[in-house]
């Protein structure tokens, strides 16, 4: 997307300096050789870099303050590293080729060292590192310290293998799961906790990760620069379904964010069809309400994800499948097939006991009900 441009602009100066014409007339031919080498290499590099921004979790496509600072620091160090890499590998290759043994060569002079040289190459990396250290320390504090006190504070709780988001009292203590809604352009402070094991909260386009650790509260902050849906994923190995512990962050204009908060507090609409009514009945009768909560209904469980306004979410199963009727039905039919190891498959009686299996008609009704929640 828009990073496509930012990547190219970041690269351009470096390339320009490589192809800049030299004043030395002798280098003309050399220059042409370099140019043809570049013509060969450039499509390759372009391919490499063009691949980069199209990834939904690319750290190059930084669209939040924290991620941008982290990317900037990465770029500084990256180009310093490229410089060191080119110089040192070139000297290494040169010395291997230049000093290859030739026939009838005399024994080389047994030099044991050169203290001036050795001082020089002790100091050289020290200086490069000192230069890198300055922005590093600066950004440690800038990304670590929360910039504003009166920010929206949301509690993020990690569960095996889904995410719970709790909004503060000013936002009606709204609770939701696997899809974090935030107002665009505002600093949002996340307090991170875990119910079971260590997880790590990561939205690559908005901010680097911070761990969620039992018996501990961590803090991170994000600010989305543009509206949109951002991909996130658990980054600390947390057990069998770690790969499928994903989530989304939706950044939206503050009016629609406020509207969403209001809707979250409202009771669900009355059933619009027989199927929806049947689904609502089954949701209670089958015991779904023991683990799931739907605001304004008898469903008050807290073990599993809160399903209020479920239909307005874009995914099912903690960020892993699009929230389509087909996928919700697939999840209800056999959650373990979709996400091996999840607790719903392990705890719900109709998955534990094959004789109590949900019938296709029941699944259809439940899907209709869940998709009416919007």
């Amino acid at each position, binding site marked *: 997307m828009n990073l496509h441009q930012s990547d190219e602009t970041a690269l351009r100066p470096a390339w320009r300096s490589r192809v800049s014409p030299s004043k030395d007339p002798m280098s003309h031919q050399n220059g042409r050789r370099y140019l043809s080498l570049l013509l060969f290499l450039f499509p390759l590099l372009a391919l490499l870099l063009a691949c980069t921004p199209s*990834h*939904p*979790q*690319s*750290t*190059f496509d930084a669209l939040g303050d924290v991620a941008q600072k*982290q*990317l900037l620091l*990465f770029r500084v*160090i990256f180009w310093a*590293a490229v410089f060191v890499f080119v110089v*040192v*590998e070139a000297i*290494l290759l040169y*010395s291997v080729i230049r*000093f290859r043994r030739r026939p009838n*060569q005399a024994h*080389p*002079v047994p*030099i*044991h*060292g*050169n203290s001036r040289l050795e001082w020089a*190459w*002790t100091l050289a*990396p020290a200086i490069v*590192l000192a230069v*890198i250290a300055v922005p*590093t*320390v600066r950004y*440690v*504090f*800038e*990304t*670590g310290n929360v910039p504003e006190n009166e920010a929206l504070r949301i509690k993020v709780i990690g569960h*095996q293998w889904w995410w719970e988001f709790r909004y503060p009292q000013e936002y009606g203590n709204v609770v939701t799961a696997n899809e974090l809604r935030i107002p665009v352009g505002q600093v949002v402070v996340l307090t991170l906790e875990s119910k*079971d*094991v*260590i997880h*790590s909260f990561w939205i*690559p386009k908005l*901010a*680097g*990760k*911070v*761990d969620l650790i*039992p*018996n*501990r509260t*961590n803090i991170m902050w994000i600010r989305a620069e543009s509206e949109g849906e951002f*991909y996130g*994923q658990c*980054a*600390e*190995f947390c*057990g*069998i379904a*770690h*790969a499928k512990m994903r989530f989304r962050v939706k950044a939206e204009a503050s009016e629609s964010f406020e509207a969403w908060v209001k809707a979250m507090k409202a009771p669900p609409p009355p059933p619009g069809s027989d199927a929806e009514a049947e689904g609502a009945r089954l949701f209670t009768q089958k015991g779904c309400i023991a683990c799931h909560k739907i605001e304004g209904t008898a469903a008050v469980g807290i073990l599993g994800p809160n399903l209020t306004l479920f239909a307005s979410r874009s995914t099912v199963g903690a960020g*892993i499948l699009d929230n389509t009727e087909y996928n919700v039905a697939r999840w209800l039919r056999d959650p373990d097939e979709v996400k091996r190891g999840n607790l719903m498959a392990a705890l719900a009686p109709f998955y534990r006991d094959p004789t109590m299996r949900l019938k296709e008609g029941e699944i259809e009704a439940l899907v209709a009900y869940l998709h009416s929640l919007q």
Partner: protein
Amino acid sequence: MAALTVPGVLRRPASYTGLWSWVTTVDHKRIGVLYGVTAFIYLLLGGTEAFLMRLQLARPDQSLVSPEAFNQLFTMHGTTMVFLVVMPLGAAFFNFMIPLMIGARDVAFPRLNAFSYWCFLGGSLLLNSSWFLGGAPNAGWFSYANLTSKAFNPGHGIDFWILGLMVLGVASMAAAFNFIVTIVNMRAPGMTLMRMPVFVWMTLVTSFLMILAFPVITVALIELMFDRMFGTNFFNPAAGGQPILWQHLFWLFGHPEVYILILPAMGIVSEILPTFSGKPLFGYPVVVFSGIAIGFLGWAVWSHHMFTVGLGPVANSVFALTTMTIAVPTGVKIFNWIGTLWGGSVRLTTPMLFAIGFIAMFIIGGLSGVMHAAAPSDAQQQDTYFVVAHIHYVLFGGAIFALFGGIYYWFPKVTGHLLGEGLGKLNFWLMIIGMNTAFFPMHFLGLDGMPRRIYTYSGEMGWGLWNFVSTVGVGIVILGVLVFLWNFFSSLRRGRPSGGDPWDGRTLEWSMPSPPPLYNFAAIPRVNSRDAYWEQKRGEVGDPPTNSPRSNSHNEHSSNGPIGRRPQGSYSDVAEAARLSIHLPGLSYFPILVAIGLTLAGFGLIYNLGLLFAGAALAVLSIYGWALEPVSDPAGHPLGH
């Protein structure tokens, strides 16, 4: 005491041939060979584990490997490569080469040395038996608490991991003490510390790191074992325990462990480069002090594995800075190695190619290491494939390349035959092309947001292409390893005879025939300089040859020309040693018995208290037997005295 001298109980075994001679051996060279062969078998196992994971990840949404199996695979791949491959391959070279390089006839404690090996074997078998006993450990090689608690990990896998690592830790501690005492006390006259080969220096530094690091992991393992087996709450959050404590303990061990893996590799490279450049190591004191400095600084950087734990900006800044500091001594080493090549007469033999490949790859791994040191940008890289790329450049492009270089370099000393050069070069090029194809794309994957330790990913993430390329790369590496195996087995018998000094070597191990006689040195050499054997050959230092002949037959052995293959540890060596009045350490059953006892005790802790006590009793009784074992054979074998 009479009871203890019951015939047969404490009589020392006497056979120098056959299977029993390997079981009871205390010869550092044979123990080195045992370490090397065992570690290489584990390299094949760990590589197979890696290949299975790569096949699973080659395309999005595959299900070749179940999530349960995948978690076991990456846990065992990491644990195997660190504890059962790179460390013991290093130990193989310590064992075989250190006494030869310092002019000693064996290590300080030969039976303890045998015990180290058998403990290593016992611990590794204990760990890997979990595959057949209900499932391997599955919480990663770092096994973060509290995912390892009984509540979240009810099977026995973690127990096997804990006890396997404890037994392996005993092996490492015993070996480390042994090598420190050997290096400090048993150097030939004239070999001052600053005349020691750099490989010996790096072994010394590594041994100190092991002695200081393994107790830390042992404490953590014991706490975890108590949590799991006896209901303590060190890491149980529900009872106020702190999972973070595990991370601090693990990485306080884990980061020095990284240097335990890489310093021996740097030592090997520091031996190979001067030999094939025809020049002494450039800036020897600086290379040595850099190694020591890395060893020290390695203790001040552990929290860079924990930048996302939320230790706060001050702690993160401090650890970012200390981590960057390590790049200075590392950079110095690289420049000194290049300085060694500069102005030399460089022979591009296979060992040399691996050593140069080591430098080239280690530069990449070092630079990505500096990137991780910057805590803010590391928050984007931590626990992604970018880190996987980094560790493989350091540990595969680094440690494994150097160890392969070491194998090509010292194989003729061990066997008396050269490995094939043509196949060797093919092996090198396949491995370096393969590893770059496998691991370089992982940098892209990490920056594109692919976390580590996921068993699958969906196609929409856009990670399919580079994952596929990476899997192809691993296939190329495997071809390289197959070429090596072919080369190894064909050269073992039919390789070109090497003679004592095939490379025009510089250090003392090249001054003796290949394979070396059982007693190593007929006469302990006198050392007058660094690169002792080189100076001796060139006559640049006025002293007579160090390995001065005492008999005609020895004279024959130490000639530099090609000689026939001599069976190692043969009876003729034993007779020769007796004739030269050289004391050889007697063979012993007890090291393996103690190791068997400890391993059984490990199984016992998991399954059955009776077995625990039986194992412990066997270990304790064997230690008594060991302590009371007569120095000389009561039967009056000609060897003993």
